[in-house]
């Protein structure tokens, strides 16, 4: 009977009164099972407060009415928004951005820092932590072209072409709002409004609102978003079945931390939202649900046990 796989389900089958006669005999008059029985019966009598169904339905009705109103507004005042296209682009690859410019206007952000920048044409840029943005002021009116390493959300004033250059490619939009992110390893594009075509090597996809695409080392997968803004503007990053090593790399970048993740965990899948508030909170929200333990040593290095 040693190492019998049935043993792993024994207690559950005991509870459901589904044991074999031999198993039942083996348990016999074991007093500890009587105590366990008393406890499980007690738990069965516990309840949660009844849910207020009428209140819930009322709340739903209110939410539905609001949604319909919003639609009407969009249709009557939303002309500018129709021309606008909000696109999130996450572009990753190795960049030689350091070499590009010398006399340029350069903006850089450190850990947990964010910067709002107004460009000469009144376009607005929100630069996320650990990112760098540069452009040539003298040529701005002509080119409206920026070089980005990292992640930024753009609210572009109307006008002609507007482009963001990265080594993975150039993003050109005719619309007004988009987010660009550029780090080693991934290209991800999310479209909020309008439509976007993404071409990487021989693969091409057209995104509609709420669609997103990720090229992870050339492998394409799609996702959807319900958000109106990139996650980082709301203080967190969201992962959906990402390899754990990818999540760890993102934490290392964001908090300039060193995290030692054993190779055996690299390909575990993580889904969830990770807050940027502190390294400690971010680690908790990743590793507690994964049931992995971690330790932070005195130098701030993190090891996963």
């Amino acid at each position, binding site marked *: 009977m040693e190492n019998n796989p049935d043993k*792993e*389900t024994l*207690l*559950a*089958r005991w*509870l*459901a009164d589904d044991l074999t006669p031999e198993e039942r005999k083996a348990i016999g008059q074991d007093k500890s099972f*009587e105590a*366990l029985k008393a*406890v*499980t019966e*007690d*738990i069965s009598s*516990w*309840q*949660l*407060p009844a*849910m207020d*169904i009428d209140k*819930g339905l009322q*709340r*739903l009705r209110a*939410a*539905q009415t609001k*949604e319909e109103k919003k*639609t009407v507004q969009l*249709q009557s005042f*939303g002309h500018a*928004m*129709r*021309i606008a*296209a909000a*696109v999130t682009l996450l572009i990753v*690859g190795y960049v030689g951005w350091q070499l590009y410019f010398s006399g340029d206007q350069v903006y850089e952000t450190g850990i947990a820092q964010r910067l709002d920048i107004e460009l000469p044409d009144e376009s607005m840029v929100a630069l996320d932590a650990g990112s760098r943005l540069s452009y040539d002021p003298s040529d701005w009116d002509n080119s409206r072209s920026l070089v980005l390493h990292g992640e930024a959300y753009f609210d572009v004033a109307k006008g002609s072409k507007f482009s963001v250059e*990265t080594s*993975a490619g150039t*993003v050109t*939009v*005719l*619309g007004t709002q988009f987010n660009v992110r550029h780090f*080693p390893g991934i*290209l991800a*594009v999310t479209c909020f409004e*309008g439509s*976007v*075509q*993404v071409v990487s*090597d021989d693969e091409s996809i057209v995104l*509609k609102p*709420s*669609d*997103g695409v990720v090229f992870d080392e*050339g492998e394409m997968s*799609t996702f*959807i978003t319900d958000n109106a803004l990139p996650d980082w503007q709301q203080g967190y990053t969201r992962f959906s079945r990402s390899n754990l090593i990818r999540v760890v790399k993102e934490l290392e970048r964001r908090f300039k931390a060193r995290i030692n993740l054993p190779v055996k965990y690299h390909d575990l899948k993580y889904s*969830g*939202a990770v807050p940027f508030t502190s390294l400690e909170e971010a680690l*908790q*929200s990743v590793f*507690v649900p994964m049931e992995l333990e971690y330790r932070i040593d005195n130098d701030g290095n993190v090891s996963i046990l």
Partner: protein
Amino acid sequence: MTLNALLCFVGILIKQDVYPTNYHEDINYSDEIALNFLHLPTTSFTPMKADHSLCEESVYNSVYQEQAEKLRNILYYKCGDLSQAEDLVHESFIKLWNKCAEVLYDKVGGFLYTVANNLFLDQIRSKKVSMNFEKTLGPQTDSEDPYYQLRSDEFRQNLEDAIASLPEGQREAFLMNRIDKLTYKEIAAQLDISQTAVEKRISKALGRLQVLIKEFENFKI
């Protein structure tokens, strides 16, 4: 790095009609969450029978009456926060309304659970879960019952803490069985795992309770 070309352009936005009745024209094929539950429009799209259409308010309301509390309970076992669980139920039903023309009536339970679970995964999870139940049976003081102490406030508090500290999967399966009286088979179907997996989870949870009982009894003696 295999990426060497990126081409991106944005066309003029054509605002989609957001009324649910037209949604079947705009099904988002990348929507992994809901795809399994959708009527996929083939060459001819056949609308649901009126008496089963989730777009009918009476049908939708009756689904709410039947499913909301069950769903709320499962979400509570995951997050340990009653109002968070009820918010997730609310959000899930809004999604159901928006997709009412596409969700099969028979699959509505699975749709709601999957949507709610995905919404839950998207939320920032609180570090510590705590569990709190209403107990209808008062603490027994009947000394003829050899286990009356196991229904004392003190032990029940320990028990709730122990349940709260179980891994999410174990806690969920165990409480669905105890509180919602679901069979292992029903739990397996709901969580989309095998029955054996459910039995393993529940056995582990019971093993934890055995240890707790032993500790409590040793402490008393």
